[in-house]
């Protein structure tokens, strides 16, 4: 058994009994942990993990987090919180809720609590593990076994929550690598509408963030979900977003990865009734030796369901990215429409991208499209800008910015857009000039 599993065993034995949840949750945790240990960490021998090696993680001795003092936590919030989001907010530092940083003023129709609190009260437990395909997503099992806290959100029937709900997860690494495991449960009841931002950032030495989100989108509901990941280049980040989309419901997910040493991001959307729609937008900008692996699965399980997926990547340095987009159309799921695209821009010779669509179609009356590109900047556009007097470096920077900006523009929340645009610009050569363009 490797160091990581060994250490987790010790942690579970020592702290497993004191984790939130009643006896039945305790049972669930125990089973999940045993199954996780029995199967171990994924290896590159498995198709789903072919390009992403966890060898470095295996060597780490992980520990559950210790409490961070409030002053340190509040200072971190000050550093990382997105400015201009003034709606409901929950903040966690190293997995622990920081009440003075939260904004919980009652909003009619929105049930919003920390998951720990929800579990104490009872009801939050019902949706736990109900959406995620626990057999497939092994890290979700680890999360179930050892999560400490997270968020529980429910919007009441036909209620529209205007302001985005902001969930901020800050990871402060220390000498011992910590296992930070947010768990987020979201339910939009029939006809409800809301926006949730999950924002991951942090600093310091190595840490493992393993986060799981479960989304229940009831009929005719609308959920827009953001996962913005800007962690330190020492951190490992593993995420899974699992959504069950019912009749005429719409789920839109934005996945932005700008940080992390090793990132694995799974999205699994199941369109279970007719009229269900899912949209996935992704942007990853990898630098240094960063590694970002996006795996998406969209299951069209009913007729008249639609999906649209557009991931873009900018790779620099010696970084690596993986995109695997799987679309499944079940046997009786006629008249579905699924479009997928993945475009990548390579800024250096030493970076690498592996992109692969996987279509598995068992129905015959479907419209599916997919396309992937890997390349350099458009030579004609580059020449056009240079012929107007812009130097080559600025022209390249501008075109790279424009490529990423196409995804950022779709975010629809200005506070996020301007922050992310600034990050992109900051990473490009000649950023001072480029700043004038936004």
């Amino acid at each position, binding site marked *: 058994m490797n160091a990581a599993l060994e250490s987790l065993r010790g942690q579970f034995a020592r702290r497993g009994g004191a984790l939130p949840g009643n006896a039945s949750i305790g049972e669930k945790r125990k089973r999940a942990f045993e199954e996780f240990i029995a199967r171990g960490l994924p290896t590159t021998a498995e198709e789903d993990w072919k390009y992403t090696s966890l060898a470095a993680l295996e060597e780490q001795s992980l520990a559950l987090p210790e409490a961070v003092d409030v002053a340190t936590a509040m200072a971190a919030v000050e550093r990382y919180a997105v400015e201009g989001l003034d709606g409901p907010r929950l903040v966690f530092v190293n997995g622990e809720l920081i009440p003075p940083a939260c904004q919980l003023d009652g909003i009619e129709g929105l049930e919003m609590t920390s998951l720990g609190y929800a579990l104490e009260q009872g009801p939050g437990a019902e949706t736990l593990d109900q959406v995620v395909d626990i057999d497939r997503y092994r890290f979700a099992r680890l999360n179930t076994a050892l999560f400490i806290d997270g968020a529980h959100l429910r919007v009441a029937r036909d209620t529209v929550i205007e302001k985005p709900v902001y969930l901020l997860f800050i990871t402060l690494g220390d000498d011992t690598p910590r296992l930070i495991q947010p768990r987020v449960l979201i339910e939009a009841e029939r006809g409800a509408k809301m926006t949730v931002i999950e924002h991951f950032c942090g600093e310091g030495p190595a840490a493992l963030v393993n986060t799981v989100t479960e989304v229940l989108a009831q009929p005719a509901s609308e959920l827009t979900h953001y996962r913005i990941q800007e962690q330190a280049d020492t951190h490992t980040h593993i995420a899974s977003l699992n959504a069950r989309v019912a009749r005429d419901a719409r789920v839109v997910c934005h996945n932005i990865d700008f940080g992390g040493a090793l990132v694995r991001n799974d999205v699994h959307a199941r369109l279970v009734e007719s009229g269900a729609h899912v949209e996935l937008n992704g942007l990853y900008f990898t630098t240094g030796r960063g590694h970002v692996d996006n795996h998406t699965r969209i299951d069209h399980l009913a007729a008249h369901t639609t999906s649209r997926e557009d991931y873009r990547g900018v790779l620099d340095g010696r970084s690596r990215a993986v995109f695997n987009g799987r679309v499944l159309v079940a046997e009786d799921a006629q008249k579905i429409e699924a479009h997928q695209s993945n475009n990548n821009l390579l800024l250096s010779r030493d970076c690498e991208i592996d992109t692969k669509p996987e279509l598995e179609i068992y129905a015959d009356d479907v419209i599916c499209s997919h396309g992937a590109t890997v390349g350099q900047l458009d030579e004609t556009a580059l020449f*056009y*800008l240079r*012929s107007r007097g812009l130097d*080559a470096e600025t022209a390249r920077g501008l075109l790279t910015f*424009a490529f990423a900006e196409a995804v950022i523009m779709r975010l629809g929340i200005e506070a996020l857009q301007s922050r992310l645009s600034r990050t992109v610009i900051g990473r490009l050569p000649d950023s001072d000039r480029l700043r*004038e*363009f936004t």
Partner: protein
Amino acid sequence: MLKITDLHASVDGTEILKGLNLEIRAGEVHAIMGPNGSGKSTLAQVLAGRDSYEVTSGSVEYKGLDLLALAPEARAREGVFLAFQYPVEIPGVNNVYMLKAALNAMRKHRDEPELDSYAFMKLIREKMKLMQMDASFLNRGVNEGFSGGEKKRNEILQMAVLEPTLALLDETDSGLDIDALKVVAEGVNSLRSPERAIVMVTHYQRLLDYIVPDQVHVLSGGRIVKSGDRTLALELEERGYDWLAEAVGA
């Protein structure tokens, strides 16, 4: 101002320009006509510095400089401007900012102070009025979603702002309605001055009614096969190009 001597250029191993000679003095307006595929755009792009064309021999002297030795941006800063036959759409790069960056790059090169946003907007509004362009174009991406004619107008707007010394207009008149043609011609004429030269590639004599050239050249088979005054354009309109090919034996 511009002296092209025995210019040979090829693309992907195919020779397109085959010993082209042309001389243009400051203050002059030249028109270049010629059949499709004869190399007119190639000439314009080679002069602007497109590196997908390989110059295999010959020389181009511009204001005493070896033009071919300069990067495209250096040529632009020395006052060379190419209005593209097919202007490029660049979504995400804002029209105004691109133009402001372009103008300031030139000003910096000439040791003039850069224009701030206020001064620049004042200038561009003035030029847009001249081009009869709607202010909404300002906030769009470069040529993004512009109609064919709007793209051509945008090229001339850029020219009007950048005030080049040598303007190369590659079929700027194609795709313009008659009113737009007049507006574009006005824009070009307002740029005419003793220090500047203008080269217009066109298929239509009509343009030359509005912008009267000093000389007309026929480019065919990668060479200038005939030059004359503006009556040559009228003759071409009547007779086409075949008689020239026969006369030259090309």
